[in-house]
């Protein structure tokens, strides 16, 4: 007899081995699945669809982007599939997102932050698109849209200024006057405090620590000028020099007038305290308007440019971050994506967007600005009058340097503002790690 004829126990139904084998096959299939899908992710998309990765997760921008994609769909017959991700999460995961299977077109920011990904080859140049849309933009905007290699990588949609916001009616009731100089500003803050207000709204808790950078940027721009600010942010200047220390010294004059407990509050809640007239002023961007639901309050909002510190620099710089779109490195629907970008770079797209989200300004020269609110008009004038336009610390610098070194340093310092030597030393010790050429 051979071994083959050895009787096996006849099991009714699936035997033990069968079950184990079956389970095992399932496991193997499950393990193999991600690999297979990864392989299948080639350019298989249908030519009628363009995908858009959007960080506009808040209600207002979300519906504004929806209006854009709908309008484009009606005009071109292409369908835009939008994949919306929470704003902070989108930024955090951008590197892996762009290396995986990103959407054809994605929302992003102008400045160093755009150039970084262009340089790394994670975005495709869009010179072809710019041949069509180039006439609509001024030289400053064009410069913002180019990578370090001179090619275009970015299609701008809107920008918005940072300034000191306040409510006109509150200033009128209390007889406050708009400060032009730093001394007037501090004097006004003191007066507000005596009147029982929180002079400067403050909310940088949770994921909102970026919001403190507005004050930092402006203090540096006003005290040390645009050129110094940019070289500091690009890692070309030491953080422990006297001029940077002076920024923290100035800031220390203002921090006692900050709304208490800012470290645990969201920027939205801080903004609300301004709208509720509990805080007197707020150093924030025009996007503050997205928090406003009552049109009467919107009409009551106003701003003034961050006050002058050094007369040599006056108020010549404005912080006006520009948001827009980029093309991923291997778009599935190349032609559709470029058509979409050309549409996004047109005046009508900007008008459509502004129609839903009036807290921004069109950057296209032909965009119709007749429907602008007073606040938008004033914002546009502020930007137009600027000699220098900065983006924002986390856009003008290496974002990793800002988020893992500068922000923890500054928020910790804001908890106990001292002369800042230790804080600046800590920041300086990490600089070379991020800025080695």
């Amino acid at each position, binding site marked *: *007899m051979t*071994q*083959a004829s050895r009787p096996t126990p006849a099991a009714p139904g699936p035997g033990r*081995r069968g079950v*184990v*084998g079956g389970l*095992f096959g399932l*496991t*193997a299939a499950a*393990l193999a699945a991600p690999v297979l899908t990864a392989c299948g992710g080639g350019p298989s998309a249908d030519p009628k669809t363009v995908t858009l990765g959007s960080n506009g997760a808040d209600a207002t921008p979300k519906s504004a982007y929806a209006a854009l994609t709908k309008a484009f769909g009606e005009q071109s017959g292409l369908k835009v599939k939008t994949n919306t991700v929470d704003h*902070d*999460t989108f*930024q*955090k*995961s*951008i*590197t*892996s997102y762009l*290396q995986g299977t990103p959407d054809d077109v994605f929302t992003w920011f102008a400045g160093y*932050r755009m150039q*970084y990904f262009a340089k*790394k*080859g*994670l975005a495709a140049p869009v010179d072809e698109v710019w041949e069509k849309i180039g006439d609509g933009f001024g030289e400053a905007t064009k410069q913002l849209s180019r990578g370090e290699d001179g090619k275009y990588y970015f299609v701008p949609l809107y920008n918005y200024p940072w300034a000191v916001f306040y409510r006109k009616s509150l200033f009128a009731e209390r007889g406050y006057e708009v400060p032009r100089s730093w001394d007037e500003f501090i004097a006004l803050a003191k007066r507000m405090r005596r009147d029982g207000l929180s002079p400067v709204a403050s909310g*940088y*808790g*949770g*994921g*909102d*620590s970026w919001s403190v950078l507005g004050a930092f940027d402006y203090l540096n721009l006003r005290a040390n000028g645009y050129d110094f600010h940019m070289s500091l942010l690009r890692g070309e200047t030491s953080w422990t020099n006297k001029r940077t220390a002076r920024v923290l010294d100035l800031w220390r004059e203002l921090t006692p007038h900050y709304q*208490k*407990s*800012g*470290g*645990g*509050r969201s920027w939205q*809640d801080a903004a609300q*305290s301004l709208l509720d007239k509990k805080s007197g002023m707020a150093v924030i961007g025009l996007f503050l308007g997205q928090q406003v639901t009552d049109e009467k309050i919107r009409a009551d909002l106003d701003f003034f440019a961050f006050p002058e510190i050094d007369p040599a620099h006056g108020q010549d710089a404005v912080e006006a971050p520009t948001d827009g779109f980029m093309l991923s490195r291997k778009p599935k629907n190349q032609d559709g994506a470029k058509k979409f970008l050309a549409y996004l770079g047109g005046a009508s797209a900007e008008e459509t967007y502004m129609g839903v989200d009036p807290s921004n300004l069109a950057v296209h020269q032909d965009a119709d600005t007749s429907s602008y609110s007073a606040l938008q008009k004033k914002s546009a004038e502020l930007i137009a009058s600027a000699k220098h336009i900065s983006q924002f610390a986390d856009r003008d610098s*290496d*974002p*990793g*340097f800002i*988020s*893992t070194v500068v922000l*923890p*340093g500054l*928020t*910790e310092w804001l*908890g106990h503002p001292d002369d800042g030597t230790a804080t600046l030393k*800590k920041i300086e*010790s*990490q600089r070379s*790690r*991020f800025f080695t050429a």
Partner: protein
Amino acid sequence: MPPASSSPSRLGLGDRLFLAAVIGLPLLALLIFVWLPALASIALSFTTWDGIDLSGIHWTGVENYTQIFTNYPPFWPAVGHNVLWLLFTALLPTPFGVFLAYHLDQKIQFTRFYQTAIFLPMVLSLAVVGFVWEIIYDPDTGLLNSLLGAVGTDQHIDWLGNPDLNLWAVLIASAWRHTGYIMILYLAGLKSFDPALKEAAALDGANGRQTFFRIVLPTLKPVNVIIIVVTVMESLRAFDIVYVLGGGTGSKPGMELLSLLITDNIIGESGHIGYGSALAVILLLVSLAAIGAFLVQTFRKEDA
């Protein structure tokens, strides 16, 4: 026919193939999904890499490690916080969980209700736990500050923003979860406890405390080991709740932890994969040392 003993020649070709597949494929999966990344991490920890092109990997030797130990401001605070986390968890919520389990195991009224209530935080998704505690700690409208306001103190305490306070605030939230976890683990152990031992102890005149410390605790040694290992592991890998309460953007002043520093460097817009890997390797070594020392010590005694 050979005797039906454990001779390998008994296995036919099909059996061998089957065995090879059943053992080989999981082994392969283990290698690919656990060991390969672990070893790659260790290798990467000696390089700098931005995480984009493989050609961007540059060998730097132990540079990352010297940088971390000598020139990385959040590193030593993070180590301190991890140690604090371990001590706090081992000294408060863990014994408290055991205490609750012991008492809920007695025949008291509504014990099921209490068990469910105390275990509930463990069932909630972490995002929910984060929201719950955010609402409690909110500086303006939070439950805690409202209560303090109601009893007359006009203090405006910034629970999550103040770098001296926020770690404790998070530790409380974590303890709230950990207690229920330990309780359920210990309760499971107590269910298998032979009541005859307790009766014998009672006959010998042992009081409640003596019964617990002299009889129950030594008998439940395997469960104790699990609980200690769980506590140490949870403390070293503490991440999620700090991440959620810190706003989901990485480490915050006062709340630095090793695990958060790793994600700070690896995830994010400009990755420092090598640097982050070096941090991960340090955490791995610390964890291995802690758990290894403990397990070796425990089981050596058992074998002897």
